[in-house]
C-alpha cells in the first residue's frame, strides 16, 4: 500500500479494540481482506459493523415485524419508509435517535438529530412537511435535567425553525432511569410524487459519484461507534467531538436537491449520515451490486491536511452523495452553485465489486463490498423473558386522597402536564398547512393544495414495556393507532425507534424480544405495518439501563379535512359518551405511581380485536359528523382524559352519577384506570350514536354532559377548570424558570 498511509498508526490489537471490534470480528476481517487491513480499512470495518450501522444485535428480531401491505411502497431498508397516500402522492417518513450526542451537548446533539432525519426523508425525493420529537429525560430532581431539557428543546427548535419545517408533535416523559441517558428521537414526514421516489442503489459503470453540500471537517470521527458504546463516567471527560449543525445549509440543500430531483439527472442519492462518506458510498454500491472508486483528494475539506481516514469517517453534517447520469454534471453543478453549495465529482462507479480509495492517484484503501456487507456480524444474543407482574385487584387498596385532589395533582405531574412550554419554542405553523396544532391526540397537516391531510403522532409508554414487554409493545402500537383514529384519520403505517439498554445482558435482550413480539402482533392485527425504524442500544450508565422505550411514530390519512375531530370540548349542552369497557386496570398506571407511590402490577391487557372494532366505529362516526370532539384514553384514564378535553375547550363537564352504574370498578379505578381501547367523545346526537354502537357491537354509554366552568367528577365532587389549568400549564414553565 502507498506512502500516504505509511505514517498512520499501525494496526495493533489495541487499535483493533479501540475500534470496538472483538477478536472474532477481527479474524473475520482478516479472512475477508486476505491480509491485514490498514488503519483506514479498519476504520471502515469498524463503522460498518458498529451496532448503529449493522443492527447486529437486533437484526434477527426486527425481521419479525410486518412490513408489507397494499399501502406500502417501500418498507425498511431504505433511508425512510414510503407509503401510498393516494392521488399520486406518497408519504415518506422515519424516526431516528440522537441520544448520546444530545446528552453530551444537548443543543447541537438534538439539532443535528433533526438535521439527520430531515436528510433521510428528502434524500428520497420528499419535501419534508412535518417534524415530531419523542423525548425522555431523567428525574426532574436530577441536577442535569433542567439544562438538558432547555438545550434539547432549543436545539430541536433552532434547527427545525430555521429549515422551515413545522414541528407539530411529540411526547415527553421524565424518569430516573434516563438520568444518565436521555432519549432524543426525531421524526420527519415528507410528501413526494409517488412515481418519483429516489433510492440509494447505484449501478452503471463509469457513472460519476458526486459530493454536494457542506465541506468535510474532522467532526464526530467515530460518532457511529460512540452511538453504540455504553456510557461510563469518563465519557463526559473524553469529550468526544460533537457535530455542529448548520440548518441554513440544510435548507439550501433541501431546495437544491428537490430542484435536481425534478430533472432526470439522478441515478441514486444517499445522505451522509452516521459514518458519513463510508456508509453512504458503501450502501450505494452494495445495493446496486457495483463497485466504487473515490478520489479522496477531490473531497471538499474544511481543514487542511485531512487524512483519508478522517475524510471517510467524518460525520460532518449537511452532505449528500449522488450518482448522476453521465452528461448531467453541468446541470447539477449549476443548481448547487445557485444555492451556494459545494459540488465535486469525487469518483465513479465500477464493476469490480470493490471500494477503491485513492489519494493523489495512489490507492490508500481497497475493500471488497459484498463480503463486508454480507459478513456483517449478526448475533443471536441470549435473552431471558421478563417475569410477569401480578394483576392488581382494584378493590384491593384504599385510595389515599379523594378523586378531585388526585386529578389536580396528576394534571400537574411532569409526565401529564401541558408541554406548551416546549411546543411554543417550535415553529409549528410554518408552511401554512398545520390544521391541528400540538396539544391534541395527533397533529394534522394538510397535504398542500388539497383538502386532504396527514395525521401523525409519536407514542410510547415505557413503564408498561418494563412491566410486561409484550403487552407494552402491543400497547404502544395500539395507542399510536388510537391517537390517529381519534382525529378521524385512517392509520396507515408506522416508523419505530427502539431504545434499550445493553443487549449483551439477557434481561435487556429479553425486553427487546418481548416488545418486538407485542409490536408485531399489534401491527398485524391493525394492518399498521412498520416501514422504517431505528435501533438505539447500550442506553445505560454504570449498569443502569433505561426503561425499555420502543417509540412508535404513526402516520394516517384524512380524506376530507371537513370531517376531523379535536379533543377540545365543543361547548356546553353536549353528551359525553364513553366508548369501550372500563374494568379499572390500575397496574403500572400513572395513578398508582404518582398518587399511591407504587409502580408494581401488570399493565392493562391489549385486546387488538376490540381496539380495531372500537377505533373503526369512532372513525366512522367522526367522518359522518356525529362525534363533535374525541380523545383517546390512555395515561391517567377517564378523569385525565376528560380534564384534558375540558381545558382544551375551556368548558366544564359533569359526570357525577356515572360511577354508580352496576358493574363499575371502585371509584379510583373507574376514574383513573388505564383500560385500553377506549375513547371519550362528545355528541349532540347521543341516541343515534348509542344505537349505532349497539349495532357495531361497541360498548358505549353516556357518562355526563358538557358545560360550566368546573368538572364534577363523582359523588358530586367538583374542581374548577381554573385550578386544574394553573397546575397543568404551570408545572413545566415553573420548573424551567426555577
Amino acid at each position, binding site marked *: 500500500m502507498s506512502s500516504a498511509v505509511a505514517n498512520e498508526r499501525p494496526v495493533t490489537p489495541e487499535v483493533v479494540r479501540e475500534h470496538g471490534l472483538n477478536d472474532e470480528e477481527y479474524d473475520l476481517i482478516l479472512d475477508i481482506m486476505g491480509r491485514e487491513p490498514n488503519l483506514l480499512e479498519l476504520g471502515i470495518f469498524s463503522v460498518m459493523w458498529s451496532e448503529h450501522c449493522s443492527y447486529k444485535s437486533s437484526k434477527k428480531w426486527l425481521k419479525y415485524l410486518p412490513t408489507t401491505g397494499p399501502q406500502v411502497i417501500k418498507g425498511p431498508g431504505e433511508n425512510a419508509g414510503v407509503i401510498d397516500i393516494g392521488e399520486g402522492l406518497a408519504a415518506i417518513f422515519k424516526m431516528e435517535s440522537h441520544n448520546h450526542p444530545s446528552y*453530551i*451537548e444537548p*443543543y*447541537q446533539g438534538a439539532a443535528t438529530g433533526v438535521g439527520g432525519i430531515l436528510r433521510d426523508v428528502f434524500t428520497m425525493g420528499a419535501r419534508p412537511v412535518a417534524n415530531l420529537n419523542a423525548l425522555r429525560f431523567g428525574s426532574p430532581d436530577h441536577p442535569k435535567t433542567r439544562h438538558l431539557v432547555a438545550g434539547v428543546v432549543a436545539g430541536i427548535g433552532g434547527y427545525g425553525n430555521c429549515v422551515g419545517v413545522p414541528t407539530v408533535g411529540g411526547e415527553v416523559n421524565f424518569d430516573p432511569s434516563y438520568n444518565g441517558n436521555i432519549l432524543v428521537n426525531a421524526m420527519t414526514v415528507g410528501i413526494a410524487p409517488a412515481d418519483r421516489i429516489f433510492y440509494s442503489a447505484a449501478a452503471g459503470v463509469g457513472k460519476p459519484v458526486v459530493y454536494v453540500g*457542506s465541506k468535510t*471537517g*474532522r*467532526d464526530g470521527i467515530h460518532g457511529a461507534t460512540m452511538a453504540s458504546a455504553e456510557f461510563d463516567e469518563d465519557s463526559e471527560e473524553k*469529550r468526544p*467531538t*460533537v*457535530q*455542529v*449543525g*448548520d440548518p*441554513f*445549509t440544510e435548507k439550501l440543500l433541501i431546495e437544491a436537491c428537490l430542484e435536481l430531483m425534478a430533472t432526470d439527472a439522478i441515478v441514486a442519492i444517499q445522505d451522509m449520515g452516521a459514518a458519513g462518506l463510508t456508509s453512504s458510498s458503501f450502501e450505494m454500491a452494495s445495493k446496486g451490486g457495483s463497485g466504487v472508486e473515490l478520489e479522496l483528494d477531490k473531497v471538499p475539506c*474544511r*481543514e487542511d491536511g485531512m487524512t483519508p481516514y478522517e475524510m471517510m469517517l467524518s460525520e*460532518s*453534517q449537511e452532505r449528500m452523495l449522488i450518482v448522476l447520469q453521465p452528461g448531467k454534471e453541468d446541470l447539477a453543478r449549476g443548481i448547487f452553485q445557485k444555492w*451556494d453549495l459545494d459540488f465535486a465529482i469525487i469518483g465513479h462507479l465500477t464493476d469490480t465489486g470493490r471500494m477503491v480509495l485513492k489519494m493523489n492517484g495512489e490507492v490508500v484503501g481497497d475493500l471488497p463490498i459484498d463480503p463486508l456487507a454480507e459478513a456483517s456480524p449478526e448475533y443471536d444474543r441470549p435473552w431471558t423473558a421478563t417475569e410477569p407482574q401480578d394483576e392488581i385487584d382494584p378493590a384491593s387498596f384504599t385510595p389515599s386522597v379523594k378523586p378531585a385532589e388526585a386529578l389536580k395533582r396528576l394534571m400537574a405531574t411532569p409526565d401529564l402536564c401541558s408541554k406548551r412550554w416546549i411546543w411554543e419554542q417550535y415553529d409549528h405553523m410554518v408552511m401554512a398547512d398545520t390544521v391541528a396544532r400540538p396539544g391534541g391526540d395527533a397533529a394534522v397537516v394538510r397535504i398542500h393544495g388539497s383538502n386532504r391531510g396527514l395525521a401523525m403522532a409519536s407514542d410510547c409508554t415505557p413503564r408498561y414495556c418494563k412491566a410486561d414487554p409484550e403487552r407494552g409493545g402491543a400497547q404502544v402500537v395500539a395507542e399510536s393507532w388510537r391517537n390517529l383514529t381519534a382525529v378521524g384519520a385512517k392509520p396507515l403505517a408506522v416508523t419505530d425507534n427502539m431504545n434499550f439498554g445493553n443487549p449483551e445482558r439477557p434481561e435487556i435482550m429479553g425486553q427487546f424480544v418481548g416488545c418486538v413480539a407485542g409490536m408485531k402482533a399489534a401491527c398485524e392485527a391493525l394492518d399498521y405495518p412498520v416501514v422504517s425504524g431505528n435501533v438505539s442500544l447500550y442506553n445505560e450508565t454504570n449498569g443502569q439501563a433505561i426503561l425499555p422505550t420502543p417509540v412508535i411514530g404513526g402516520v394516517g390519512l384524512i380524506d376530507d379535512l371537513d370531517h376531523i375531530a379535536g379533543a377540545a370540548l365543543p361547548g356546553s349542552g353536549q353528551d359525553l359518551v364513553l366508548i369501550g369497557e372500563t374494568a379499572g386496570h390500575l397496574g403500572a398506571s400513572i395513578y398508582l405511581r404518582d398518587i399511591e407511590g407504587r409502580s408494581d402490577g401488570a399493565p392493562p391487557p391489549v385486546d387488538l380485536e376490540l381496539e380495531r372494532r372500537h377505533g373503526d366505529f369512532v372513525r366512522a362516526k367522526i367522518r359522518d359528523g356525529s362525534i363533535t370532539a374525541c380523545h383517546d384514553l390512555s395515561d391517567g384514564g377517564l378523569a385525565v382524559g376528560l380534564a384534558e378535553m375540558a381545558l382544551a375547550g375551556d368548558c366544564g363537564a359533569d359526570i357525577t352519577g356515572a360511577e354508580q352504574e352496576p358493574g363499575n370498578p371502585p371509584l379510583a379505578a373507574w376514574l383513573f384506570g388505564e383500560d385500553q381501547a377506549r375513547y371519550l367523545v362528545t355528541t349532540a346526537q347521543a341516541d343515534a350514536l348509542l344505537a349505532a354502537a349497539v349495532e357495531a357491537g361497541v360498548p358505549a354509554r353516556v357518562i355526563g354532559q358538557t358545560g360550566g366552568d368546573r368538572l364534577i367528577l363523582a359523588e358530586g365532587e367538583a374542581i374548577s377548570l381554573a385550578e386544574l389549568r394553573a397546575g397543568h400549564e404551570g408545572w413545566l414553565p415553573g420548573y424551567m424558570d426555577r
Partner: protein
Amino acid sequence: MKARVHVTLKNGVLDPQGKAIEHALSSLGFDGVNDVRQGKVIEFSLSESDPAKARAEVEAMCEKLLANTVIENYDIELNA
C-alpha cells in the same frame, strides 16, 4: 474587579456563522478576508477583589455555564 471572557469555538468545529459572515463580506466586495470565526464576549463586574480567587471563580463560571467545553474554548481577562 472587571472580567471579560471570550468564548470561541474550538479549532476544527464548524462555525456556520463565521462561514456566513465571510460569504457576506466577500459579496459586499471585501476581498482577502479569510478564516472568519464568530465568538461571544461576556463582560461583568465581580465583587471578589483577590485576583487569584477571582480567576478561579470565573473559571468555574466558564466551566459550568458560560462555555460549552465540548465545542468551545474560553479565555479570561481580569482587570482591577
